[in-house]
């Protein structure tokens, strides 16, 4: 009977799949990030980068284990996040995780990872509490917090002589956090926040807020939020004839921001944790390899961190073996380990302390490190300078 044949085929296929692919022992890593919804671009970039790290590692004959990346979507929602975190933590074959871009999810899952004893490295969420809100040994983070970022940002902008800001931020934890810390660092140095506007993450029209901002006559529009809104605000500033400097946060440091704005992006300033990937030898290698794989989406701002986190975990597991407890104690010893985002040192909260902050400016359609730019050398001028 043809039906029996079909059944047989399915059974055979199942058997074949379950055969081991190579002689090396296979170890599973989890990747968790937003793959659907408004933040999916960054999530997919992170996913691809972690995937790249695993592929490169697996191709290395010296590597001790074969790694398998289990990818989970947290939708940027805490309850889904806890659900997939439980899934990763409960699966004993998963040894460690590269987890979360959205701060609100990362904060929600720390208890879960602690309870289930899964060592994780956060690859993108910037809220300080994720590492400093508890003393769990399981949680680490390679990227810096928004505290570091805004300290650098405030210093640099004050040095350029800017004094009058209007802040526009999205009402997510990311935007609100940036609003808080930037305000905190810029005011002691003589900066003034003339106005402060919260906008919702799916808002399209900002003309009402911007018209008000225009009336306040600021030198700089500080924007705390991600690319989609950042693009809209920058474009609508132009429509309303607002001639102020545009300053952003790590959420807009990606090629899409420039692509979506074209010439309007010129001179936009933004800050991001980590050393510039282009300038580190490993970083160049990363970008080349990434291009080779022909992923449909770019790595985005936090891709290098996902890559660095995955690589750090695999190197650690290669050293101490696929044992969660051993991985946790090994991670506590991480000091000055080279990565494509600069050296990594975890403090006693698992926070990477040497997370350097890099300032960027858009010059001729590219994000250029501030110090190398014609803006720093004085050849070009920021708005109003």
């Amino acid at each position, binding site marked *: 009977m043809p039906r029996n044949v079909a059944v047989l085929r*399915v059974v055979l296929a199942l058997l074949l799949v379950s055969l081991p692919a190579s002689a090396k022992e296979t170890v599973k890593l989890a990747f968790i990030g937003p793959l659907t919804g408004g933040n999916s671009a960054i999530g997919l970039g992170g996913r691809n980068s972690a995937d790249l790290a695993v592929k490169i590692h697996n191709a290395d004959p010296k590597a001790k284990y074969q790694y398998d990346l289990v*990818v989970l979507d947290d939708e940027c929602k805490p*309850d889904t996040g806890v659900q997939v975190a439980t899934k990763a933590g409960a699966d004993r074959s998963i040894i460690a995780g590269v987890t979360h871009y959205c701060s*609100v999810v990362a904060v929600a899952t720390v208890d879960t990872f602690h309870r289930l004893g899964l060592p994780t490295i956060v690859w993108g969420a910037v809220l300080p509490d994720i590492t400093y809100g508890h003393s769990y040994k399981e949680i680490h983070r390679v990227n810096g917090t928004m505290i570091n970022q805004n300290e650098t940002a405030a210093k640099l902008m004050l040095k350029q002589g800017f004094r009058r800001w209007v802040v526009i931020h999205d009402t997510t934890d990311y935007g609100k956090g940036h609003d808080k810390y930037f305000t905190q660092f810029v005011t002691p140095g003589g900066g003034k926040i003339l106005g402060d506007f919260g906008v*919702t993450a799916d808002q399209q029209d900002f003309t009402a807020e911007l018209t008000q901002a225009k009336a306040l006559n600021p030198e700089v529009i500080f924007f705390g939020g991600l690319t989609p809104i950042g693009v809209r605000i920058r474009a609508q500033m132009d429509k309303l004839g607002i001639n102020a400097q545009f300053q952003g946060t790590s959420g807009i440091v990606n090629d899409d921001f420039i692509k979506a704005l074209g010439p309007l992006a010129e001179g936009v300033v933004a800050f991001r944790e980590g050393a510039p990937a282009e300038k580190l030898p490993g970083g160049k290698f990363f970008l080349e390899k990434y291009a080779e794989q022909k992923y449909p989406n770019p790595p985005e701002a936090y891709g290098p961190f996902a890559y660095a986190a995955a690589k750090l975990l695999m190197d650690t597991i290669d050293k101490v073996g696929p044992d969660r407890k051993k991985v946790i104690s090994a991670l506590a010893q991480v000091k000055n380990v080279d990565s494509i985002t600069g050296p990594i040192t975890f403090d006693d909260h698992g926070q990477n302390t040497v997370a350097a902050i890099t300032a960027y400016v858009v010059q001729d359609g590219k994000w250029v490190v501030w110090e190398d730019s014609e803006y720093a050398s004085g050849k070009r001028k920021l708005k109003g300078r």
Partner: protein
Amino acid sequence: MTAYRPALRVLSALALGAVIGILIYGLLAAESEKAVGLVLLAVALTVAAGLRTGVLPRLARAAGSGPLLGSVALAGVVLIAVFHDDPFVLLLVARALLVLVACLGLHVQFADAGVPNFAGAAFFGVGGYTAAVLGAGEIPHLLVLLASGAMAAAVGSLLLLPLLRTRGHYAALITIAFGLLFRTFLEVNEGLGGPQGLKLPGLRILGFAFNDDRQLLGLEVSGFAFYCLAAGVLALGAVWLVRRVERSWLGVSLDAVRLDETAAACFGISLGRWKIAALTLGNAIVGVAGGLSAMMVGFIAPNNFTFQESLVLVSILLLGGLGNLAGLAAAALIVVWVPEKLQPIQEFRYLLFSVLVVLVLVLRPGGLVRRRARQAFGSAAA
């Protein structure tokens, strides 16, 4: 109606419970893409065959609802025991049960009184936030859960007047607007944690902490097993309550309001009173589910209570077949599990899920299981 002998009733109930239990076990245990596909196929075939041949309905009728409910509960306990040390499966089960409870609340509004509610997630959220605010203090957690329900009903009472004055799409808009408004309000307002959300303590009843894993009969039992039991008890209670309401003069009056407002009014049935009753009861049920869910997850944030989440609840209602509790339960399980089981296809899962919902709605406009006439009550009916 034929009267069945007790032994036959118990046997039928057990058989049906076993079938349901095995199917759910398959769904839970399936891990790889192929296994998920095979299990889904098996479930579909079993259900289709059971309905075609009439075996499943006949078993259900033979068992009667009481024993059937008991046997499903038994199957649930067995499943919990089987998965006692797998927190993820237990979390999924508990979530599905709580979503079911929330849907039961919407069912009272939507399927009984005919009042649409597209802000289900908002009332779920009200319950959760109430639990977050009160649960941290010294108030006994059972009271906190009751307060979650009461608070959801109280917030819902803001919408009573608008909803009584409008109907159909106009009423739908009011709930949609409220859902959007609620979520934005939570996000902008700092009082309740803002966009960053709030942490919650785990459920604790009479000193028994649900969060802790513990040794039972020499087995390592995950804390989520206890949440499963709590959610199960809540779900059974909600099913019991909703069925009792439906099989009484309350149900008759609600049906009359839903089916023909003019005729109902001409027989003295106050439309306002019954709609208010359904809205309040429904929101209270949703709120209690939200409270327990928040305590189980341990964290809530506005992101969880979006318009899309409300849509998921309504989808469950319509997919199950408006007005049918068995269909509702099946749909709740499917809608909670399918996206989770679709994790292997990563970013494509929401697309596939939406396509599936559209297909079901177009191919089976009445939902998976057709609505049944309300069963009679009183001794003459038995």
